């Protein structure tokens, strides 16, 4: 257990993942992992390509059901919830997808208003105002009536974030928020996430492998590993970068290959342990 984790264990847990295993058919992708996310933190799931980051996220947002174990969102087991119980859990979370996933047949403001229309009794004017406020929060004032196809990559991510925040959820899940964005737009998005976290107190769970974003945003990270199908490291990114002795973690945070680490690749094959 890292120093960082010891410091925050007295905080309130908002997500609790216990003995969780994810599988596609007979192929196990993630094997028996356990971790917690604490209220108000910016928690990042990272790892190399194909290690199961997005799979974990999709289980956490209830798209897939765990092969084993449980995922509690604010104490409710999302993997075992059905009907109204599941909807209540889903109302407490917001999700921004890698592609943005805005509905192409609706304008930006209609996209943001959709969850409000479905779940609230607000009048049309109120919904319109709330949606405009959310779009203003992400810096998209003036783009309300545009269609998603008219937006740039960065604007799509912002609009998706505004839609995810429509019902003021307690937890926001972001899948690869900076993927495909230029460094400036990416840094602006990081800044926006930090601002929202500070001003709204929302818990962020973010899947990414963009190192700059990780250092800019993360309070705490877990790193998944493809070979062990488990969590290989957990803690603050700076702490892991400076102190981890696990080759794959070093390689990730220092952006180095086996040869550059000077071990000819043998170290990466060593039995990895959890930091």
């Amino acid at each position: 257990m890292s120093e960082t984790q010891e410091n925050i264990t007295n905080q309130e847990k908002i997500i609790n993942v216990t003995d969780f295993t994810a599988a596609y058919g007979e192929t196990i992708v993630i094997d028996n992992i356990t971790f917690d996310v604490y209220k108000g933190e910016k928690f990042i799931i990272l790892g190399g390509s194909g290690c199961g980051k997005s799979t974990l996220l999709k289980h956490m947002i209830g798209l897939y059901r765990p092969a084993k174990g449980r995922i509690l969102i604010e104490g409710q087991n999302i993997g075992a919830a059905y009907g109204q119980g599941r909807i209540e859990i889903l109302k407490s979370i917001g999700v921004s997808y890698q592609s943005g996933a805005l509905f192409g047949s609706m304008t930006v403001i209609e996209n943001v208003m959709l969850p409000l229309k479905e779940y609230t009794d607000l009048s049309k004017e109120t919904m319109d105002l709330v949606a405009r406020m959310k779009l203003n929060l992400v810096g998209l004032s003036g783009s309300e009536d545009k269609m998603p196809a008219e937006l740039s990559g960065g604007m799509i991510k912002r609009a998706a974030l505004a839609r995810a925040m429509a019902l003021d959820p307690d937890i926001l899940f972001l899948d690869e928020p900076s993927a495909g964005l230029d460094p400036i737009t990416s840094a602006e998005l990081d800044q926006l996430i930090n601002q929202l976290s500070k001003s709204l107190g929302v818990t962020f769970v973010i899947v990414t492998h963009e190192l700059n974003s990780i250092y800019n945003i993360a309070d705490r990270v877990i790193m998944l590993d493809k070979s062990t199908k488990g969590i290989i490291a957990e803690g603050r990114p700076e702490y892991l970068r400076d102190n981890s002795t696990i080759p794959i973690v070093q390689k990730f945070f220092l952006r180095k290959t086996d040869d550059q680490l000077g071990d000819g690749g043998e170290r990466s094959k060593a039995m990895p342990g959890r930091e």
Partner: protein
Amino acid sequence: MTNHTATSTASVQSATEDNNTLRVKINGRLDAYTTGGAWNESVNALSKTKPANLIVDAGGVEYCDASGIALFIKLQLQQEKQGGGFKVEGLSPELEKLYDLFDPEQFAEHDDEKAPKDDTIVAIGKESFNFWQELRVHIEFTGKLTVGLVKAFLHPWKIRWQEVFMTSEKFGANSLFIIALVNFLVGLVIAFQSAIPMQTYGAEIFVADLVVIAYFKELGPLMTAFVVNGRSGSAFAAELGTMKVNEELDALETMGLDPVPFLVIPKVIAALFMLPLLTVFGNLFGLLGALVVMFSLGFTFETFLNQITTAATYGLLLSGLFKTLFFALIIAGVGCLAGMRATKGPSAVGDAATKAVVIGIVLMILVDGIFGVIYYILGI
């Protein structure tokens, strides 16, 4: 023994030095365009002689890229498979570096790597499991669709009417021309083809009866449904398939919104309203096609009208229109399901659209057959 074959810019000389050693000397360029000829020649020489040792003399190679290295690896692997020794000689230092990049062992085909073939019982088991999984998905979807429709009719204010009207415009109004054209031509052809034998018996006046009965009961509903299926069923599949690929369906689910009532039900309702109307329109144009033939046979409009009003009944018209409700369900349901089940990849949406059209047509013919039997039993 010495063989020599020249390709355009690469040549191979193979010679047995003693009873146990084959020396293959390669000269010229070994690139993607020239290696093919050298490949066949050297591999054939190796297969024929099966030497204990193979020496590839690359001293005359002027240029070599990955294709040339692939030839060396192929020769090495084949020789090792035959249990012989292998050596490359004369590689320049630059080519040596390129050669060292690839470990031949990584390209060897190991027999134990091949997936063992399932025995028949396992294969049958797997196929049965897949079949039941497929069936389960369809039953689940049909159940959701039924519940969604019942809920929609019990709470009509909850239906997304804007979406229904927009779909109705695309599904109905925008397909009027093609439906008119197809039905007009089919009516014309049927009338013309039946007029030829009927003329023999002086019964050509009954062409009008034949067309109206065939059209009201079978051709009108079927032809219209086929056209709409090709046009709108595939469009539904493409629309939902694109949404699936763009994660929009996932986004709906994580908002707690079921895609079936949200996306599918408005399309089904639009189809249920529009297909019977389109069929009436199609029937009309089918009869117009027949009218043209009747005119050409010398009959007047009044005669044609008298014949069709005598032959056609409301029961006949309604029996055809009733079927269209089921066709509408099939077109919208199958189209949407195919789209929602689209996989990832560049051909996903196209595959979904194709599946929607093919399954839709097969199911509609099947349902039409069932109705044919039921109507026969009921005497309609």
